């Protein structure tokens, strides 16, 4: 009798296990299958296409080996593209982090209306890049735009900011920073709230001033956050596209064209799908390397 009950119980458990496994595979299918088809497969597709000359509309494909890569590295425009993208990165990453950090330091306190202020700082992040790009084009309007009017107060002569070779990229970087610093701020704020108050108390007992608290406690303890934001910022910078499309269309004279902009143009305007894929693969490798560093850092920093 007792043996029979035990058997039945085990059968019931085995039955439950079988049902669990069956359902598990069924229920992840609508998530895993699209990821395989729409994310993994296209990466393999990009790698494959990068060795071909391909026309999507007539579907004619010719294997040309590494010619696309050779072409990219000989091509002046590709070099300009890389330089522009790096210029954007060098401007955008430190600025968005510095502004975001300053905003976090300003708003890391409690008073009435603080969440309104944080919300206002963060709002640009959520809005459409195209819509706000249009608003900023109007702000950069040479004669009557707010930027020209404001700078005139400081004696700067107005110019066609988005169409001058020396100001177009800084203008794009400025708008990108405006649009992103709220996100950086929120992540820094989360980091600041994770620093135990006792550290500050101890340092104050030792006679530290405000600046020393920032220098010796806040900044070192936020290093993981800073590193994370640095890597994420670079990954985002390498892919800047929307803002360039709407504000400058890569101009003037290719001064603001970027990697993704060139991928788009080559694929959809010049029908050079193979060449565009080669650029996408280069971009993918760069992002994979950055992701690897990020992962490496965070899996090793867990040790202490």
């Amino acid at each position, binding site marked *: 009798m007792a043996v029979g009950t035990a058997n039945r119980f085990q059968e019931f458990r085995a039955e439950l296990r079988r049902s669990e496994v069956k359902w598990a595979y069924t*229920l992840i299918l609508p*998530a895993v299958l699209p*990821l395989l088809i729409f*994310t993994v497969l296209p990466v393999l597709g990009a790698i494959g296409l990068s060795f071909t000359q391909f026309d999507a509309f007539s579907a004619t494909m010719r294997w040309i080996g590494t010619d696309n890569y050779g072409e990219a590295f000989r091509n002046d425009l590709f070099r300009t593209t890389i330089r522009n993208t790096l210029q954007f990165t060098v401007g955008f990453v430190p600025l968005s982090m510095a502004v975001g950090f300053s905003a976090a330091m300003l708003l890391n306190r409690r008073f009435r209306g603080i*969440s309104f202020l944080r919300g*206002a700082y963060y709002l640009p992040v*959520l809005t459409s890049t195209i819509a*706000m790009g249009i608003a900023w084009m109007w702000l950069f309007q040479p004669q009557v735009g707010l930027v020209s009017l404001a700078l005139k107060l400081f004696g700067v002569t107005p110019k066609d900011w988005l169409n001058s070779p020396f100001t177009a990229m800084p203008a794009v970087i400025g708008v990108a920073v405006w649009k992103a610093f709220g996100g950086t701020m929120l992540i820094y704020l989360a980091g600041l709230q994770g620093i135990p108050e006792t550290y500050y108390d101890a340092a104050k007992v030792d006679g530290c001033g405000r600046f020393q608290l920032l220098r010796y406690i806040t900044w070192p303890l936020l290093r993981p956050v800073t590193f994370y934001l640095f890597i994420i910022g670079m990954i985002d910078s390498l892919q800047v596209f929307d803002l360039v499309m709407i504000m400058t*269309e890569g101009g003037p004279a290719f001064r603001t064209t970027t990697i993704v902009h060139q991928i788009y143009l080559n694929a959809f305007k010049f029908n050079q799908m193979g060449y565009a894929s080669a650029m996408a693969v280069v971009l993918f490798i760069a992002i994979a390397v950055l992701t690897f560093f990020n992962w490496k850092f965070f899996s090793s920093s867990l040790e202490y």
Partner: protein
Amino acid sequence: MAQTRRLRLPPREELLYRTLLVFGIVIGLIIAALPFLWMAVSSLGTAGMVIRIGFTWDMFNPLNWSLEPYVVAWKMASISKYIRTTTIYAVAVTVLATTTSSLAGYVFGRLRFPARDFLFGLVLATMMIPGSVTFLPLFILMLRLPLLGGNDIFGAGGHGLYNSYAGLILPNVVSASSIFLFRQFFRTLPKDLEDAARIDGCSEPMIWLRVIMPLSGPVVTVVALFQFQGSWNAFVWPLVMSSSERLYTISVGMYSLAYGSGSLTSMAELFQSVLLAGSVMAVLPILVLFIAFQRQFVQGIALTGLK
């Protein structure tokens, strides 16, 4: 203890410090908010005022405001069409992606099955693959899907899912980062809950629907909000996937308006105000959503560390 926390400088420096603080906060607020206000005010100006005069104090006088740019944007410049398409797209993506991701998050977070860690690793790996790498091959894939949209079994002859809602929506029916978020949250729920349901003969989908989801309101809200916000603003994918105005999302529509390929020419008298009115309408739904759900948006950032 509480007293030591407050740091006090000598009165003069303390006053200077506080002044600088307020000054900084106000400057930040102006930088963040001014473009929105400027955009809104300029969108209400009548043609001559905005283009020829630019900035005048008269612009801030409500008596000079006119809704004409909005009427033109809505009717002539097809903003109504773009908003409709964007709404369909964003709602579909939000509902589908939240559902599939929470199901997968439930399975990865709470069930045991062979190859679970491998499959979850695969999901995590796809998080690092950005859309800017995949949009081109994905476009070719959608264009050449066999047996759809006039294509034969080899994917030749027709247009596949190019220029269709299915083509717009399908690649976005799941989000790896949402799976991750759901999994992390589901793992914190006590195991007894679903065991009780399981003993009572509940199947796994029923446990997900009746036990897990009702407890997950906050995380569902966060995921749905970010899905909606992301797809409302989507640009690259709708840009390459749609050839007819009928399928333009608001960002693609505004882009085509700005560069003259839409139904409004840049020569039109109201051009600038209409563009700005369209931009206001593109931003407004997100603004309303943000005001209603600010806490959830902020929590979501802190939770995921994603911007």
